């Protein structure tokens, strides 16, 4: 391997050729502050416009300061990362950014989690010497995301996520000079655009310019209404990340504390979306087997591959961008919506609570779920199956608000019947998990034989597009997996061009799957956080007594008592949906 020798802050080091000063410094334990730069190693995600100019350093022999994030190391380079000249420049640039930024930190949604605020703190900014006009724009509130672009610092991370990673193309830099900002075309509202609400813009925004719509106040109101029975469901990825909000190591599983916290918040029943994930597998798995059987019997019109439909951003994505494929995805509703539907029918009937008096709240790693529960097809007479979807971050806010000392909570168990789940339900939270869960069930239903092994490691990992062939009792089942909508697009294009032949494809909109969702604790550009969450999810799976959806006794009970069998008429009515051409 080629190496170069350089001196940074008087320390001689040897580093790999081709890396940046920023990376070289990090390897020597020197932290150079950054703002616009973000790199998610292994996911091929990098934002490097070199625009904020916070990371400038002094390189001997150069006329100007060099941005550490963009400047490649060279042999013999002498770098000073904190000379007076550098510090003065950094502070001045930061002051300039702050001079065009609303100083409402105390009441900003991002306060305490804001990269800009941290930087101002670390750089010891006590006065802004260059005051002047601030740029102002109209605030835009959509069903899931709020754009308050007065707070935009033009780091371009959201633009990069929206265009390069997700290929949704809603956001672009517009105007130029002082009025330049990132916005949708014609500065239209997001809800008029093709935005999928994947929330990856929110996940990477370093300031309060992009945040989720906060619905905690609605939840508090419902909880304090004595006439309402309030049930809560929590998505699988939440338990692998919520602990971070309370200072725990990324990847700490907090399932039991999560349940305890929700109970202390006053929810009447604490249920698990994992239960609905098991239900999804029953329906989607059956649908896959039906299509597969027809295919094997020579039916040429059968829609294969089947595409998963758990992810609301993905659903909106293909409705806008691939409407010609709208008959291919599974018609199964997402676990969130299956849960809502079952809660407001089966459970409500069982408990003799009227639909109107039952409030379903979901805790989601996702901001698109806010949009999903508002879709008309998921309402009965205007009453939504899921009333409120709040993010992992919002839940942490609620817990703090209620003076609950999360770290000292005991572990508690979910309520029954909608709180029981299999390990298959848990792994819905990561890329590859849904399809693995489906395989576990579909294999046994198809071959009528027990699985020789439960872990399908060939389906796991972080590569953006993965494929594997599973022996389905002699039939080679071709499986495709994509996470990130750009990867999904590439996979779909391969299918459309006939380049690849798959039988089943799992798609999740967010890099890493739900563990990297737009509603999760901010990863601040550290991909290790996502990897640790993924490991935690598989750990939870491996600890479960039941690891296949069709073995969940309460799922069996639900079919026996209420739904009949998968894909029955009742199941169809309650658990399936249709898609729309949104072009």
């Amino acid at each position, binding site marked *: 391997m080629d190496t170069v020798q350089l001196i940074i802050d008087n320390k001689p080091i040897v580093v790999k050729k081709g890396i940046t000063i920023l990376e070289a410094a990090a390897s020597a334990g020197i932290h150079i502050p950054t703002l616009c730069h973000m790199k998610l190693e292994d996911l091929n995600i990098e934002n490097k416009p070199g625009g904020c100019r916070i990371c400038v350093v002094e390189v001997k022999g150069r006329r100007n300061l060099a941005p550490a994030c963009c400047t490649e190391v060279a042999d013999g380079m002498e770098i000073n990362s904190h000379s007076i000249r550098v510090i003065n420049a950094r502070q001045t640039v930061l002051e300039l950014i702050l001079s065009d930024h609303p100083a409402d930190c105390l009441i900003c949604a991002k306060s305490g989690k804001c990269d800009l605020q941290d930087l101002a703190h670390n750089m010891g900014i006590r006065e802004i010497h260059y005051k002047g006009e601030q740029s102002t724009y109209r605030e835009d509130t959509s069903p899931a995301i709020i754009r308050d672009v007065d707070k935009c610092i033009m780091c371009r991370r959201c633009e990069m996520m929206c265009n390069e990673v997700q290929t949704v193309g*809603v*956001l672009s*830099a*517009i105007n130029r000079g002082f009025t330049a900002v990132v916005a949708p*075309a*014609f500065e239209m509202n997001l809800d008029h*655009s093709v935005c999928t609400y994947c929330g990856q813009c929110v996940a990477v925004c370093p300031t309060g310019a992009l945040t989720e719509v906060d619905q905690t106040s609605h939840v508090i109101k419902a909880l304090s209404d004595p006439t309402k029975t309030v049930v809560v469901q929590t998505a699988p990825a939440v338990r692998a990340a919520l602990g971070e909000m309370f200072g725990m190591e990324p990847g700490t599983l907090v399932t039991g504390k999560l349940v305890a916290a929700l109970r202390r918040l006053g929810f009447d029943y604490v249920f698990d979306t994992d239960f609905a994930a098991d239900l999804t597998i029953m329906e989607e798995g059956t649908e896959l087997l039906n299509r597969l059987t027809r295919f094997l019997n020579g039916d040429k019109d059968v829609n294969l591959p089947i595409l998963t439909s758990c992810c609301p951003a993905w659903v909106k994505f293909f409705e806008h961008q691939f409407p010609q494929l709208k008959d291919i995805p599974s018609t199964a509703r997402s676990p969130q919506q299956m849960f809502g539907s079952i809660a407001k029918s089966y459970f409500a009937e069982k408990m003799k609570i009227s639909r109107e008096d039952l409030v379903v709240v979901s805790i989601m790693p996702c901001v698109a779920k806010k949009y999903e529960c508002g879709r008309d097809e998921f309402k009965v007479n205007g009453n939504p199956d899921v009333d409120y979807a709040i993010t992992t971050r919002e839940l942490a806010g609620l817990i703090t608000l209620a003076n609950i000392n999360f770290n000292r909570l005991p572990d508690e168990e979910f309520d029954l019947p909608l709180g029981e789940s299999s390990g298959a339900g848990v792994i819905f939270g990561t890329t590859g998990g849904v399809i693995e869960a489906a395989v576990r069930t579909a294999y046994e239903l198809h071959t009528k034989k027990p699985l020789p092994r439960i872990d399908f490691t060939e389906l796991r990992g972080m590569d953006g597009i993965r494929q594997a062939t599973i022996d389905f009792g002699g039939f080679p089942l071709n499986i495709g997996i994509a996470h990130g909508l750009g990867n999904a697009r590439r996979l779909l294009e391969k299918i459309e061009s006939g380049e690849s032949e798959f039988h089943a494809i799992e798609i999740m909109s967010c890099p890493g799957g739900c563990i990297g969702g737009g509603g999760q604790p901010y990863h601040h550009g550290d991909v290790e956080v996502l990897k640790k969450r993924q490991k935690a999810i598989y750990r939870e799976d491996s600890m479960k007594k039941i690891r296949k959806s069709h073995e969940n006794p309460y799922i069996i009970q639900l079919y026996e008592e209420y739904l009949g069998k998968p894909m029955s008429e009742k199941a169809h009515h309650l658990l399936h949906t249709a898609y729309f051409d949104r072009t």
Partner: protein
Amino acid sequence: MPKIKLAESTVKIIKDVCARFNNSEGELINVLHTVQHKLGYLPAEVQEVIAKELNTSVAKVYGVVTFYSYFSMIPKGEFPISICMGTACYVRGAEQVLSEFKRQLKVEVGESTSDGKFSLNCLRCVGACGLAPVVMIGEKVFGRVAPTQVKQIIAEYREGCSSEKAKSA
């Protein structure tokens, strides 16, 4: 997104232009130039058609349109007035000429008069520095314009004759 309410014939013009540039995203600026030349300006609906034809996002098209001062989303006046604000014109009094145009037309830079006759803009150096300060109305160049001439220049356009007389001293 607002539904496209352009006339069929307009849509065809745009599509033809895009096709002429092989519907290639890299030709976006050439496409915008040609379409603006044909239609006079680039309203939102036009940008949407272009985005679709070039298989790019309308946000990117809008991002480009708003970056370059040559592109306009509002129709220009019947007589678009451009004041050169290049340095040579500036030191020879272009600012006073501009403020006189503003005063006489009662519009700000970037606006059109309510009757749609005149629009007022600044531009950077037409390269006729020998004639500074320079004003362009349409394709016509007026050189060595003094603030006192402004009223007369406007009046002549108002009266409908494209003035030969008011031309450079």
